[in-house]
């Protein structure tokens, strides 16, 4: 139990230090680290007193159920099952982060889920941050952030669906400091 806990906590700490854009590894890593520490403490105590010891996670869940009137054997069973769940849930979260990060890694042109125009405009404000300017001809519909690293594009042909297989759409784009395009998210528009 203690060895498993140390392993889980180490894995959790590693995930906390992993550089990844979604932040999901931080949530999963934090949960793994805390649960690993709980498992380690229970394991060491079990070695010391030579008796079976429940983790805090398991105690909290089973204790709570007993308080609400659930018979102790059932409550302990649920506590034990939660224990297993606590170990697997963060792994699931981390797995999801991996898929999300892998999904579009290295691919510049991607298509997002459709949005209504109002939602896209609210997202655009957040994407560009204050200080953005319109570039190209006045009324072009191409907006660049103050630091030059982000762009929102809704030109007449984008919104009109005059090109492309996805019909009316807008763009959220990201550049490197040297001007290289890193991401070009095509967001289809829906008109409810």
């Amino acid at each position: 139990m203690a060895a498993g806990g140390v392993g889980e906590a180490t894995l959790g700490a590693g995930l906390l230090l992993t550089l990844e854009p979604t932040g999901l590894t931080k949530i999963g890593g934090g949960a793994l680290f805390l649960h690993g520490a709980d498992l380690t403490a229970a394991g060491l105590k079990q070695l010391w007193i030579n008796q079976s010891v429940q983790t805090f996670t398991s105690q909290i869940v089973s204790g709570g159920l007993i308080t609400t009137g659930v018979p102790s054997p059932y409550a302990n069973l649920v506590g034990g099952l939660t224990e297993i769940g606590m170990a697997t849930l963060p792994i699931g979260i981390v797995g999801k982060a991996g898929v999300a990060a892998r999904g579009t890694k290295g691919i510049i042109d991607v298509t997002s889920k459709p949005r209504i125009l109002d939602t896209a405009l609210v997202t655009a404000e957040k994407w560009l941050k204050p200080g953005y300017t319109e570039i190209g001809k006045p009324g072009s519909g191409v907006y660049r952030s103050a630091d030059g690293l982000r762009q929102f594009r809704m030109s007449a042909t984008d919104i009109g669906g005059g090109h492309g297989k996805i019909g009316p759409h807008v763009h959220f784009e990201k550049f490197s400091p040297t001007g290289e395009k890193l991401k070009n998210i095509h967001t289809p528009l829906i008109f409810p």
Partner: protein
Amino acid sequence: MKTYNRFIAEVPPVRQEQHIRWLVLEEDLENTGGWYLYGHQDLNEGSDFDSWHQTRPEAQREASTRWGVTEDDWKSDV
């Protein structure tokens, strides 16, 4: 009638990604004053992606660095 510039280039087979075989470079005088770079799997269908550039050299630079399309590869389509 307004005239506009449009060029087509075939992406070298070794540089084709996401099944993009053709690039179209199109001037957008009327709306943005910039240049569109379209990626097509098939020229008879709509584009699979589009990017926008303030100038033609900027669009051609992207075509060159990302897709390996050189200046000589572009053929006028007007």
